[in-house]
């Protein structure tokens, strides 16, 4: 179990660094075992170095940067051990327009092997999806699901 863990851990580390440097156009991300002699019980910490910056403090990252960092690790895990589904709830909310595009491109890669379901308010992400479902409450308090094209949804929520 220990050798298996270390082998997989090293692979995730590599992929994490790869995805991170794509999102942040450079820089390095690393996973550090707090107790390397006991990998199975050790805590896993994240260390980050942004391109062109000396600081390594995770606390100073901005709202959008923290989201991208967490998503980089998630995607790295999927690259090493693909899970059948990936269900995301408004993960793109803190991202600026350019990072939403990068995020969606990674989702596209991920969706080759994994079924992706995403909840979003972001029009760019809606346009990127293969299928779109709209939720509405025709009667107050009662959810209804309609399958929709983007153009239909605009009609449904007129002030949207």
């Amino acid at each position, binding site marked *: 179990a220990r050798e*298996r*863990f270390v082998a*997989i*851990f090293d692979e*995730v580390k590599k992929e994490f660094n790869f995805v991170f440097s794509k999102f942040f156009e450079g820089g390095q991300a690393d*996973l550090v075992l707090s107790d390397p002699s006991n990998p199975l019980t*050790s*805590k*896993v*910490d*994240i260390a980050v170095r942004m391109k062109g910056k000396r600081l390594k403090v*995770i606390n100073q*990252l901005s709202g959008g940067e*923290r*989201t991208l*960092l*967490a*998503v980089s*690790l*998630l995607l790295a*895990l*999927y690259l090493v*051990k693909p*899970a*059948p*589904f*990936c*269900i*995301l*709830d*408004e*993960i793109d909310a803190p991202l600026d327009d350019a990072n939403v595009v990068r995020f969606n491109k990674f*989702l596209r890669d991920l*969706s080759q092997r994994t*079924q*992706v*379901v*995403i*909840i*979003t308010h972001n029009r760019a992400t*809606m346009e*990127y*999806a*293969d*299928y*779109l*479902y*709209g*939720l*509405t*409450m025709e009667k*107050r*308090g*009662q*959810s*209804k*699901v309609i399958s929709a094209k983007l153009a239909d*949804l605009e009609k449904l*929520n007129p002030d*949207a």
Partner: protein
Amino acid sequence: MKIKEIKLYGFKSFPGETKIVLDRGITAFVGPNGSGKSNIFDALRWVFGEQSMKALRCERIEDLIYVSPVPKDDANFTEISITVDNEDFFPQFGGEFEIKRKFYRSGESEFYLNRVRCRLQDIQALFLNSGTLTYSFLELSEIEKIIQGNTKEMFDDVS
């Protein structure tokens, strides 16, 4: 493996039966605030064996059952079933299988695997505990947990 269909009955803001067909690729759920998008997210967590009230955003398990503006229209039970198209993960169940979880207002719970009654542990063993779903759900409020180094759980199941 992929989810082919989700059926919700009396779950949170979904009064009667709601059927959602899913396919491979990326499916987006959109809609106004409070329209029921995250309730679908909760339904999927619950059917795969989630037991934490906090993760399901409720105080007691009864809160999962649809409550209507008029008491007589309240649902008496809630039921989520998913049909899974299965090629690569669980060969023992053939090409397609169904998981169902039901909870009655009276307090009883029922679990089904391919329409045969089973226990919660059986469903959890397939999904939650087998590592298949450890990092399959991500919502914005969990980003801080990951950044602060609570990633051990994600790793435990990878190996």
